[in-house]
Structures are given as C-alpha cells and as structure tokens.
C-alpha cells in the first residue's frame, strides 16, 4: 500500500488553520478561542497517546491487554453518557444503566463481527477489535445518551399524565409506552440519518481514511457498509436496552412513578 507518511511539518500546516480560526474568534469576540485551542491541543495529545498505546498493543496482541483496553473505553463512554444526562438516575445506576447497555450491545456486535464476518486470528486481534469497538461504542454512546435523556425529561414533564394513566389502572408499561417509543426513536435518528446521507452528502470518515491510506475504493466501501450496519445494530439494540431498563427503573414495585430516583436538572 502506498501510504504517504505525514511529517511534523505537514501537521503544522494544518494546525495553522486552528490558529487562524482562534485569531478570528478573538477578533470577532466569539469567545471560543480558548476552547478551540484547548480542545485542539487535547485531541493532539490524546491521539498521540492512543497511537503509542495501539502500537504497544499491536506488538503484544495478548487477550488481557485487549480486554483491558476495551474496559477502559467502555468506562469512559459510560461516564460520557452519564454527564450528558440532564436528569440522571441517582446512585450507581446513573453510570451503570448506560454502561451495561453499551456493554451488552457493543460487545456483542463487535465480537459477532470479528468471529462471524471478518474471521481474524486470534478473534481478538487488536488491529481489528479496537477500531471496530471504538466506532460502534462511539455511536452507541450517542444513541443511548440521546434516548435516556429524552426518556427522563419526558417523564418529568409528563408526570401528571403518567400518574393519571396509573390512577386509571394502567400498567406502568402502558403508561410509559409513548415516552419509551419516542425515546428509542430519538436515539436512532442520528444513525438513520448517517446511513441515508452516506456516500452522497458525506463520505464516512473510516472509508475516507482507508482511501487516503491507499486502499482501493471498492474495498474501503465494503468495510464502510459493514461498519455502518454494525453501528446501526449496536446503537439500536443498545438504545432499546438502555431505554427499557430506565423506563422500568422509573417505577417501583407498586408501579408508582418515582421521579425522586432522578437527579434534579443541572445538578
């Protein structure tokens, strides 16, 4: 493959864009220059570090190291889901609900792809396992956090309606059904949009990267289709699991709506 290696000078040229942007932001008093520079620096350091980590990991393709890496990724994703909630569940569930759902869906889908589709040896070969898991996890994280946020906000807003339905003898499942359906739908919108626009409006990042790195376009496209479907599967199942678990948790054993199990908005 004819990869054109990038020199530090090449990266400096692209970094100029960020500097110019920051300068403009200062001049136009947009007030985002600090955030812009900070996040650019942060992503540079994070990416360089992960590059080193992946290099070590690829050289020592041991199951324990791959599992450890996957564990760190899912923990960070779980935390990210939690902090994006306006009203999150109190106690360990605030973290556990999203993390568990991500674990169930992302890991299942990734392992399925590794074993049944790609067929690498060993099946946990880090060159495939880690990037795949990363892409699936990143999107599942979005779906789950959107879905959970929608569900808890909806329940809080429609508290009186939900309690009226309960007072009419409806089961909790029926009372929450509208909110649950809406929350799952909201969680799935980004991936559906991404699939519809792929190739026409946007060239997905993974495929673009492969093509830049010298892979024939048709091969890159095949991988992109695979990844897209895996992402859709992971996001869909993950969101359904997370929203369903959360909906259950909104009610107690006497089918009372328990909004006191959620934190107050913004806290």
């Amino acid at each position, binding site marked *: 493959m004819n990869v054109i290696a990038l020199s530090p000078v090449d990266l400096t040229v692209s970094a100029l864009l960020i500097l110019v942007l920051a300068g403009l932001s200062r001049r136009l008093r947009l007030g985002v220059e600090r955030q812009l520079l900070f996040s650019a620096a942060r992503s540079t350091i994070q990416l360089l570090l992960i590059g080193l980590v992946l290099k070590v990991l690829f050289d020592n393709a041991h199951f324990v190291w791959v599992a450890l890496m996957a564990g760190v990724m899912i923990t960070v994703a779980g935390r990210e889901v939690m902090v994006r909630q306006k009203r999150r569940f109190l106690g360990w569930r605030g973290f556990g609900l999203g993390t568990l759902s991500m674990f169930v869906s992302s890991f299942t889908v990734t392992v399925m792809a590794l074993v049944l589709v790609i067929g690498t040896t060993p099946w946990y070969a880090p060159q495939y396992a880690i990037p795949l898991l990363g892409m699936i996890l990143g999107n599942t994280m979005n779906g789950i956090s959107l879905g959970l946020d929608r569900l808890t906000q909806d329940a809080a807003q429609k508290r009186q*309606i939900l309690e009226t*339905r*309960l*007072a*009419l003898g409806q089961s909790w499942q029926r009372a929450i059904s509208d909110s649950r359906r809406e929350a799952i739908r909201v969680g799935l919108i980004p991936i559906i949009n991404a699939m519809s626009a792929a190739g026409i409006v946007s060239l997905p990042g993974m495929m673009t990267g492969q093509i830049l790195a010298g892979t024939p376009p048709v091969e890159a496209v095949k991988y992109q289709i695979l990844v897209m479907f895996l992402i859709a599967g992971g996001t869909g199942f993950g969101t359904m699991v997370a929203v369903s678990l959360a909906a259950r948790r909104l009610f107690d054993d*006497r089918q009372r709506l328990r909004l006191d199990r959620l934190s107050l908005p913004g806290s």
Partner: protein
Amino acid sequence: MATLRLRQLVTRHVGPIDLSVAAAECVCIQGASGSGKTLLLRAIADLDPCQGEASLDGVRCASVSAPDWRRSVALVVAESQWWSERVREHFDHGVDPVWLEQLGLPAAAMDWDLARCSTGERQRLALLRTLMLRPAALLLDEPTGNLDPDSTRRVEVLLDDYRRQQQAALLWVSHDAGQIERVAQRRFVLRNGRLEEGGPA
C-alpha cells in the same frame, strides 16, 4: 358494598390518619392549601410511598396488584390530563351515553379533539373516564373545581346516583361549603396533618 378503611396512614407531613368510609357513604374533606389533601388522596391511591395501610372491604392495598387497586379505589385528579388527540382514545370501555347526557355533554363529545375542549368539559369527561371503571371507592380531588354552577350540580347529582346505585364509598375534597352541605354525610378538616371532624372553626 365496599368499605374503604385507612389505618395509621402517613405520607410526608400528613398523618397518621385513621378513617373509615362506609359503602354508599360520602365523606368530605376540607383544608387550607398545602394542608395535604391531595397528598392524602394520592397515598390512598398508592401513587406515593406511605406508611400504614389502606384496605377495601378488608382487602389490603399491598395484597392486590397496584393497577387492580387503583381501578377499585380510583382517584380523579383536580386537573384532568389527556395524552391522545381525541376524547374517545382515552376511554378503554366506551362511555355510558346516559351519563354523558346527565353531565350536559352531547354524544358527539367522544369524537371531539381535546385541543378544542374547554377546561370544564375536560373535567367532566375525566370524571366519566374514571366512572367507567366502576370503582368501588372514589377519591375526588375538587371534581367541580373548574365548573359553572349548572355543571357543578349535574356532577353532584351524577355522583350521588353512582354512590347509591353502586354502593360506592366517596372521599371528596372540596373547598365549597355549600357543596359539602349538599353531598356530605360526614365532614372533616385536614389541619396540621390530622383529620378533625366537623366544619372549619
């Protein structure tokens, strides 16, 4: 024939409350805003966690499923709530046309859009929605709060008929002294978390 009995019921700042509402009896509760009248009704309907127990004809609330309990000890909230577009979609078991007429609503009311209903129309429809469950006990939170005098009287008469025909126990929260005079067999004031028999001092 069903007696609603509360034994040492405590919910937040309300209680302990001991009260028994006999079959075909109407008991009214008054009390200042914030005295906990709504909290008490919610606790009886098992919508809030509470201590003590409520029972219907000796059957404890905790021994039946929550939906079953709420269908037989039914709460009608002060501000009616709706979740679908049309009135009909909220009635699982249809509606008794006689009741509709009794409350001054046309049979076509079932096909109305809720967005076009007045607050008073919604309140009367919400009452019918609950009555269609044929509850043995009714917990009424200001059921005529948004109604004009004519509709108020219609609701009072309908509930009186229901109470006698179904031998239902009624626990009725009201601010209207005249209404309490008309409908109550016994009356209480909720003050400092306790029920005191009689009218306000």
